[in-house]
């Protein structure tokens, strides 16, 4: 699943069209979904972003193969071209800094980003936005750092009054390729950290229920050993579990010896 977070309706509009998303009323936030994507419109500013992202992720807890992308506009120094898409490698919020892991190749320009409280007319050294640090904070409780990306599109050179709604829609629309590129690169570096299929997992849990906690964890280790050592082999069939405590212990020892042989 791809979680996309935008602050403004105007930022979301091009995405809704492009990905053919449908309005979803599951949360008291503006939400659009299809079978692969959840797009959340968080509202402007850090506290809106923090609350909306926390609500979304608490409601739909991400898996370890899911990704999160924050896309939105940013003000930037004149060295950045208007309309340019930036991939953020450092978010500064006053004295705190946050770093998404960029473990993939891409063609975007990388940049630091400063997260501020209000739209900025004053000049800054780096591009600025108003939500990224809060999104990072909320999302990093649910995602690993390599599952998140922050894509910002330069909308103005610290002249927010020049940015119109239509302009924002167009800025996002003209950078959908960049967004696609980051999505697919990001998805590519995710790998599941579960070793078992759901059925296998249920079976393992059932088997463990016959044993004490310590015995169960020894069995877990042996099964993990087997799966990692022979990734393509099915888990061996389990023996019948005897009733007597002593026999059960012996059956477990035999099973562990077999799995780790």
């Amino acid at each position, binding site marked *: 699943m791809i979680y996309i977070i935008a602050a403004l309706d105007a930022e979301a509009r091009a995405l809704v069209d492009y990905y053919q998303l449908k309005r979803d009323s599951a949360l008291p936030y503006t939400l659009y979904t299809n079978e692969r994507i959840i797009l959340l419109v968080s509202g402007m500013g850090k506290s809106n972003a923090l609350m909306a992202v926390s609500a979304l992720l608490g409601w739909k807890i991400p898996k370890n193969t899911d990704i999160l992308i924050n896309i939105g506009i940013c003000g930037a120094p004149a060295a950045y071209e208007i309309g340019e898409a930036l991939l953020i490698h450092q978010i500064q919020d006053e004295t705190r800094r946050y770093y998404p892991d960029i*473990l993939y190749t891409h063609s975007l320009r990388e940049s630091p980003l400063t997260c501020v409280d209000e739209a900025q007319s004053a000049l800054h050294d780096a591009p600025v936005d108003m939500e990224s640090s809060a999104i990072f904070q909320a999302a990093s409780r649910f995602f690993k750092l390599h599952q998140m990306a922050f894509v910002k599109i330069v909308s103005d050179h610290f002249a927010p009054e020049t940015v119109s709604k239509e302009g924002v829609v167009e800025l996002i629309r003209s950078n959908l390729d960049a967004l696609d590129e980051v999505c697919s690169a990001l998805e590519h570096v995710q790998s599941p950290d579960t070793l078992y299929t759901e059925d296998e997992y249920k079976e393992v849990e059932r088997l463990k229920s016959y044993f004490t906690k310590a015995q169960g964890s020894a069995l877990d280790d042996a099964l993990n050993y087997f799966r990692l050592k022979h990734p393509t082999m099915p888990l061996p069939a389990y023996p019948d579990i005897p009733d007597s405590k002593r026999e059960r212990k012996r059956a477990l020892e035999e099973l562990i010896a077999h799995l780790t042989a």
Partner: protein
Amino acid sequence: MKNSSHTSPPKLFSHLYIERSVLDHPQTQMIRAKFGESQVIVIDHYKEVFNRPSQSFAAQSRSKKLILARKEGKFLHEGSQYSDGFDHKQFFYASSVMGCLYDCDYCYLQGLYPSANTVLFVNLEEAFVQLLPYLGEDTLVATSYDTDTLAIESLTHQTREWLAFAEDHKHLHLEIRTKSANIKSLKSIAPNPRVTLAWTLSPQEIIDVYEHATPSFEKRLSAVEEAIALGWKVRLCVDPVIYTEHFDSLYPKLIDQIFETIDPNAIEHLTLGSFRMSQNHLRALKKLRRSDVAFYPYAVRDEMVTYPERIENTILETLLSKALVYLPQERIRTWQRQL
């Protein structure tokens, strides 16, 4: 959604995180020149990147980043019980690097550090200042203890600096342990009899499965051969031995292969040891669920995990009897748990 073809991982050290305080350090500048295409991200302290919560060691291992920092405090630490101090009066290991370019499944660094990235402390000159008070007596310093310094020598030149420092201090002995095949730095320096190069050698089948990103057995062996020819003192380590189903054939064959190429009289010692680790590090390794090595049913004693005694004995007996074909007992060192 369109699919783009970004399947290749980024170049090594695609990102350089550099502490503001070392931006102007000569070594920083040298590294920046070498990695001209890498992104440079200025940070205040290495911990804000290296110690971040929610990192994935496994994912980062496929795309390592470099952090350049200034070490505050001690560069030198006393040697640990898991290692051999070779009976020197004082034994330290120097930690000028955190993390390793290589990625061995059995490496305790995975349990020690929250990140697979590498931190390079560029102010090595301060390690030498800290070491000076000890150099009135026989002192061994392992310079490649929590890492493989030779693996990144072309980048850091730290081994070169250690060797130059050791030349001037007659009580200082160095041990440089490595799996690297890059010995370029040794070629321009006269061999120092107080420096031991210790190569870890493993069967190629073990390298393929457990020692990711390391040079092949053949390349390591050529480096050993060359270092000996240059006149350096060399120790060979078949340590840690990983017990697998083909252990009986893999490891004896390894010892034969080594001594088909290397004259046994040309090496100082052969070190043999089976896998061992502190229980805490193993717990952390298990959480990563990356390799079967973490899940073997080891025996635990005094917070240390080892193979069960029977297997540990089999490993040592098998290797020892093979090694004795080539070397006298006194030149073979074995690591075995203290009973």
